[in-house]
């Protein structure tokens, strides 16, 4: 591990200044991903700027009926908060499907969004990886490919985004509050994570020095029903092969609003807009739910080891929608 300095600024502005001024600096929050990367050699900063204490760690209800979540709120506190449990249960469910009790006690809201892929080649510095070392090649294309993405991949990178929380937040239309060297801006969560394209080293649209200070949720969907389902190789403490977050509003025999997101299938948490469009306003039938799920996965381009993710995503999405709407029961 390379030597680094450690600083714990008292405010977000000071933290942003410290990282902006020093090209070797990076933010540290819960450390559950970054400290591992320091050990593995995946990250080798020369200065760590600890933002716990610099960013808010409280959850406040906002006047418009929504909620503002400080970026420093831990995953376990967020999942257990009475307002989140009552008004945004899909977020609680997504959080509780992720990691372990110990990790959720450490990991923060901002850090969870900025965690990096668990692609085995990204984490193994002895192998080529375009995300870790641009231009070196992608070992995952011909190597172990079971966990790879099937949607939105590029020739440069087939890594997946590992967060469960982000998939839950995506159907809540969350907005990320970012403080940077030139002030504050708001980025819809749907626009935060990038697809790999030709620059897989860039996970998000954030610029150097920009710090997530909060996540805002609009008022909950009235009478909406939500669910988060995660499919993985073991019952607990594993990353998703596929996950589905869904929030639907049903009136009579029709879905009036549907918000669907998929995890484990892409470089970013994936909003299934084609599924949503195929559901909204149409009469509810079991076949219709499946056709809607298939509409999103029609664009899937699996590799040699992960073709199973396509039917798995379709089936999981269909099952979640069936449970939420009561169709076929």
């Amino acid at each position: 591990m390379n030597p680094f300095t450690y600083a714990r600024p008292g405010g977000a502005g000071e933290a942003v200044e410290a990282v902006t001024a020093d090209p070797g600096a990076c933010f540290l929050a819960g450390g559950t991903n970054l400290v591992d990367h320091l050990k593995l050699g995946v990250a080798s900063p020369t200065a760590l700027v600890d933002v716990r204490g610099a960013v808010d760690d409280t959850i406040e209800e906002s006047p418009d009926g929504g909620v503002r979540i400080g970026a420093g709120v831990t995953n376990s506190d967020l999942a257990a908060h009475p307002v989140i449990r009552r008004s945004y249960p899909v977020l609680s469910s997504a959080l509780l499907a992720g990691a372990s009790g110990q990790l959720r006690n450490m990991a923060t809201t901002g850090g969870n969004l900025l965690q990096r892929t668990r692609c085995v080649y990204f984490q193994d510095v002895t192998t080529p990886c375009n995300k870790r070392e641009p231009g070196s090649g992608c070992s995952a294309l011909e190597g172990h490919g079971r966990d790879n993405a099937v949607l939105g991949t590029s020739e440069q990178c087939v890594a997946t985004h590992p967060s469960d929380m982000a998939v839950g937040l995506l159907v809540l239309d969350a907005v990320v509050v970012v403080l940077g060297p030139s002030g504050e801006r708001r980025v819809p969560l749907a626009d935060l994570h990038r697809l790999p394209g030709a620059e897989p080293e860039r996970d998000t649209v954030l610029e150097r020095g920009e710090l997530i200070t909060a996540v805002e949720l609009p008022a909950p969907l009235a009478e909406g029903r939500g669910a988060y389902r995660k499919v993985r190789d073991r019952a607990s403490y594993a990353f998703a092969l596929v996950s589905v977050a869904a929030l639907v509003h049903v009136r009579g025999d029709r879905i009036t609003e549907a918000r669907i997101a998929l995890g484990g299938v892409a470089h970013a948490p994936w909003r299934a807009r084609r599924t949503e469009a195929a559901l909204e306003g149409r009469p509810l039938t079991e076949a219709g739910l499946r056709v809607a799920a298939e509409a999103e996965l029609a664009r899937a381009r699996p590799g040699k080891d992960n073709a199973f993710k396509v039917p798995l995503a379709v089936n999981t999405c269909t099952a979640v929608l069936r449970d939420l709407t009561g169709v076929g029961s």
Partner: protein
Amino acid sequence: MDSTITLTVDGERRELTVDTRTTLLDALRDRLGVYAPKKGCDHGQCGSCTVLMEDRRVLACLSLAVAHDGARVTTAAGLGDGDELHPVAGAFLDEDAFQCGYCTPGQICSAVGMLSEVASGWLSHVTEDPEGPVEATDAEIRERMSGNLCRCGAYPHIVAAIRRAAP
């Protein structure tokens, strides 16, 4: 780069100077001679380094010591009261909840933290009724302890011990 920090470990205030790269786990074991937390994977995947920080269970291997200046840390060795074993540690003995014992201090700290999470009404991934009371059923124990691996496979007895210790 060195930094001087203070930790309260198992009730004792300790001051030490650490390189900023030192994890809490290495500080406890190699600098302070507190050997209860174990180094298993050192990557946050096995749970054998679990300690309680301000009464919450965390992984010492993924915590930088310098980032926890002033923290109150409790290891499995500090849970009891004098010669009196902590009820969770006692239950592990009664139920024979280990074989080699390497993961046990982490299991016990994790169980103590987990039972207090249950007592606070925190839900888990397997909680069937979010509105109902949260109880330490076998399914809840298995889910909530999934961050602690036991390569000897003592899981059935670990579940039994935690069920015995649960209020």
